């Protein structure tokens, strides 16, 4: 079994009209055994940048702590928040530092950049960035997520419709993956507010 499939995860981020949504599943497993059904995969870096980390949970936690550390120092030194593009570059650089002993994580970064333009990207475990204009996916359920997002995505969705689309794509994809599921955690971020919602799906 691959190390990336040890804990199980599903992550998706989608772009809407002046907003974005980032969603994850809630299962934490140790191979076939489920040990938590409320695991947080998505974290806020600051009001306009969110980070989701799929893959090995211990690496996800450590990488998150390192990134928060770097961002806090940046905020203190430069007296401003990091732009999402800048943050993505930082994550990429940190991952590549460990090129020959990598973090077994696939990050998904979503944020609002200058002029409230939504920004999403994902990268592999050694920092190869992949920018997208519509959606990015990561985790053990990524193949199903690709299919679901591709068919359900529309350009310029308003926040409410975006929430529906992301939720449906996530729940239907994790149902086809035994290692992810047990509900969903969706953040819909607009320039004025952040709406966090918990989804109830098939609890298996």
């Amino acid at each position, binding site marked *: 079994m691959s190390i990336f499939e040890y804990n199980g995860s599903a992550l998706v981020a989608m772009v809407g009209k002046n907003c974005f949504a980032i969603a994850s599943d809630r299962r934490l497993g140790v191979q076939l055994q489920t040990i938590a059904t409320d695991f947080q995969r998505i974290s806020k870096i600051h009001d306009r940048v969110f980070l989701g980390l799929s893959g090995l949970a211990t690496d996800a936690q450590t990488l998150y702590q390192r990134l928060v550390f770097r961002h806090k120092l940046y905020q203190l*030194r*430069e007296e401003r928040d*990091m*732009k999402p*593009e*800048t943050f993505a*570059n*930082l994550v990429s*650089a940190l991952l590549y530092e460990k090129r020959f002993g990598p973090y077994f994580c696939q990050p998904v970064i979503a944020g609002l950049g200058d002029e409230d333009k939504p920004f999403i990207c994902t990268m592999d475990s050694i920092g190869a960035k992949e920018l997208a204009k519509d959606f990015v996916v990561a985790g053990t359920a990524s193949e199903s997520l690709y299919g679901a997002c591709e068919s359900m995505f529309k350009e310029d969705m308003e926040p409410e419709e975006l929430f529906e689309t992301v939720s449906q794509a996530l729940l239907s994809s994790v149902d086809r993956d035994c290692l992810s599921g047990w509900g969903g955690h969706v953040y819909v971020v607009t320039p004025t507010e952040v709406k966090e919602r918990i989804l109830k799906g098939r609890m298996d």
Partner: protein
Amino acid sequence: MGDSQYSFSLTTFSPSGKLVQIEHALTAVGSGQTSLGIKAANGVVIATEKKLPSILVDETSVQKIQCLTPNIGVVYSGMGPDFRVLVRKSRKQAEQYHRLYKEPIPVTQLVRETAAVMQEFTQSGGVRPFGVSLLVAGYDDNGPQLYQVDPSGSYFSWKASAMGKNVSNAKTFLEKR
């Protein structure tokens, strides 16, 4: 910095609480060629005297004003070779920042890091302080900025400033205008 025989700093406090080496460095700066900078509403101007020791010197080989990044430049008063070393270090720091964040380095950050280097040389083993004061002129998201960095590592933001020979006359002129 320095091998085990020079693990102590050469810059030490005098009984009156001054770092004499830094005072001497400032004297070296004060006898260097004049340089000055003025911050305008939409940019910064820096200038320096380029007086060469003989007419035989190839003036194109002497560069007293250098670019640190496409939008930050620097001029100095004091020892030319020390300036070259600082320019090299600052350029590397600016590029490292860009490699990490893919963003051009803000002027304040570059000034802070350059000043940190200059301060290091007042507290490390076996080295002497830099014999230059820098005027760093840059334009970034916070608009035009002008900073002076001294051999001690302290930096100040100025609307207009001058360094080197005849600095008091220059500053009086700038204050009036």
